[in-house]
């Protein structure tokens, strides 16, 4: 498995400072993470970096990235995405976004359509239908989220997450290291909440028609967090979009079914040439 390099991008005074994880060779792929951040270089990430030069910037509040206070609203967030792209020297990259990152990627592609080469959205949030409400990420105990995030709760990634949730119990017997993990997780969730609370919908749907990049929408067939019905809305509203559904998979596709997910991205991207 290739391990990522980590670098810190200083975007300037009164702007965020961004940790970027980077691995692999080849065409650039900008990876935008979900609300859980990137806990480890695992799941689909090593598979993608076997074929691409993967750049995975962390949002302020995740990893070593700081400066959430400079992103006051969602448009600051999307423009921040472009700032990072520019600082990394990426031109019309292949952008892959998962969940929160998928929403951000779709918004960026709608905002500046010419600057995104290709787009892959893995179970993105950003739309809303009353008949299929997106699960409230911020109104549950952490361990209760697991059945919503994974189809197979005994898969290794779900088990690892279950272990982590023990830190949130009200027992006060944590080690200092565990306290730091807990604080780091709270910091990341705070960032997610700033842009997604209380309902992760800010008008993306009426901007989707602007997206020019060829788009692949990937969804876990058993996603209980963001219903697969949203895949059809993305396909309908984005001018050049296809949908791939991954069987036996919940919301965290990259962690639960990394191989079929990475293969779907690679196959689709090859077919574009």
């Amino acid at each position, binding site marked *: 498995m290739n391990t990522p390099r980590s670098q810190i991008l200083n975007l300037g005074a009164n702007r965020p400072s961004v940790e970027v994880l980077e691995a692999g060779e080849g065409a650039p792929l900008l990876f935008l993470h979900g609300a859980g951040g990137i806990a480890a270089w695992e799941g689909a990430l090593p598979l993608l970096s076997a074929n691409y030069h993967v750049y995975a910037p962390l949002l302020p509040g995740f990893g070593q990235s700081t400066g959430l206070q400079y992103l*006051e609203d969602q448009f600051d967030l999307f423009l921040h995405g472009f700032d990072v792209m520019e600082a990394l020297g990426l031109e019309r990259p292949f952008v892959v976004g998962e969940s929160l990152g998928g929403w951000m990627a779709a918004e960026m592609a709608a905002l500046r359509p010419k600057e995104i080469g290709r787009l892959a959205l893995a179970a993105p949030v950003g739309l809303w239908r009353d008949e299929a409400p997106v699960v409230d990420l911020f*109104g549950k105990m952490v361990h209760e989220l697991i059945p919503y995030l994974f189809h197979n709760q005994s898969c290794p990634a779900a088990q690892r997450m279950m272990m982590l949730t023990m830190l949130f119990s*009200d027992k006060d017997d944590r080690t200092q290291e565990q306290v730091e993990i807990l604080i780091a997780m*709270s*910091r990341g*969730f705070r960032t997610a*909440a*700033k842009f997604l609370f209380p309902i992760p919908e800010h008008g993306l749907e009426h901007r989707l028609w602007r997206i020019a990049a060829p788009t692949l929408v990937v969804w876990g067939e058993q996603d209980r967090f963001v219903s697969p019905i949203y895949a059809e809305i993305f396909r309908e509203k984005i001018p050049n979009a296809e949908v791939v559904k991954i069987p036996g998979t919940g919301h965290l596709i990259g962690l639960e079914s990394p191989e079929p997910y990475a293969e779907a991205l690679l196959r689709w991207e090859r077919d574009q040439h």
Partner: protein
Amino acid sequence: MKFNWFHLMPYRWLPDNFRERYHGVWVDLPNALYDPERGHTLYNEYLDMLEYADQLGYDAVGVNEHHQNGYGMMPSPNLMAAALARRTSKAMILVLGNSIALYNPPTRVAEEFAMLDVISGGRLIAGFPVGTPMDVNYCYGQNPATLREKYREAHDLIIKAWAEREPFAWNGKYTKLRYVNLWPQPIQKPHPPVWIPGLGSIETWDFCAERGYNYSYLSFTGYKRAKKVVDGYWERMAALGKEANPYSCAFFQQICISDTDAACEREWWPHVDYFFNRCLHLYPGMTAPPGYMTEASIRAGVAAQAGNTSMNLGTNKSWKELVEGGYIIAGSPATIRQQVEELAHSLRCGHLGLGLHMGSAPIELTNRSTYLFATEVMPHLRSLWSEWEDHWWPKALPEARREKPGSHNAAVKAQVERPMEVTA
């Protein structure tokens, strides 16, 4: 020392299987459990209790704001305060308070508090809580990551609206108003005393110290467990060079009084049990949205290893454990007297918020407590802290200049109800 009779106004008819059947008392508890006709009785009974406290000479009657829950039925405490403004005459009116980040524009709070102050003849104490996560984030949809910033802006706007005598423009991040021009103005100048309820964060202490506000520590876990937090408050005040005036600090304590210690458990246990195990049955998934607490407060809470998490509210405890742990002060007036005195000295608080109604307690029990406290306890503790001036108390109009509700009708009744003049 001052004694402020505070009502939470719980819904008294949550079912016996409540804890097993529902995951929490707040936010998403189905409102099918609420019976409006019982609610009609409860509001009136609860207001009667507060009016009785006024008649017995309590210093203030208090109400507060909560939403979508069976724990406290006052989504609008200002409505309750308005009713009290007309039906009480001596007690100050403690609204603790309005969660000011919820109001759009926040000048609504400035207006309503000014109305209450004017109606009551300057008896208002204006409380500005951030509000619980359940209320402000989950029920009212405020973003936890920006809530405190919005709260501060709302505060600054309200204070300025009370102070300015000319229209001004407010170009805030959360509120933009071309013309702010408050009618009516409060009677109290520059504004009613401001009390800030908090749960022990250093940021709130600094805010109170900087602005000269009263800090109200609202805890349901009682005075013994509060000691550590309140000591922290006094240490911080000392560090900031503020005088240790006991009246800058208020503390809320639940108290059950009966004629004898033995009668107390028998009379009060069902209602205490109802309070701790139904009213405080909180779903942990909705008590700590990310960003609600500052990182410093999380770190302090996590690292203190004091068992002081938000969940540790006294559920599943026996009467003995609750009494010995100081969650409640319970017993005969003599017992109460001794323990309230201990509380006052231990916490150095000049304002005691009294929870004399608890959970499902009916009015005969509550009023008996109210009566015994007023006649057997209060007189002995009145003089405590008398060497200190209370800068956090309303400057109401003298009683002689306060309007008596109904007096205008009475004055003109004969004239108005005279026989019709018959024209030829």
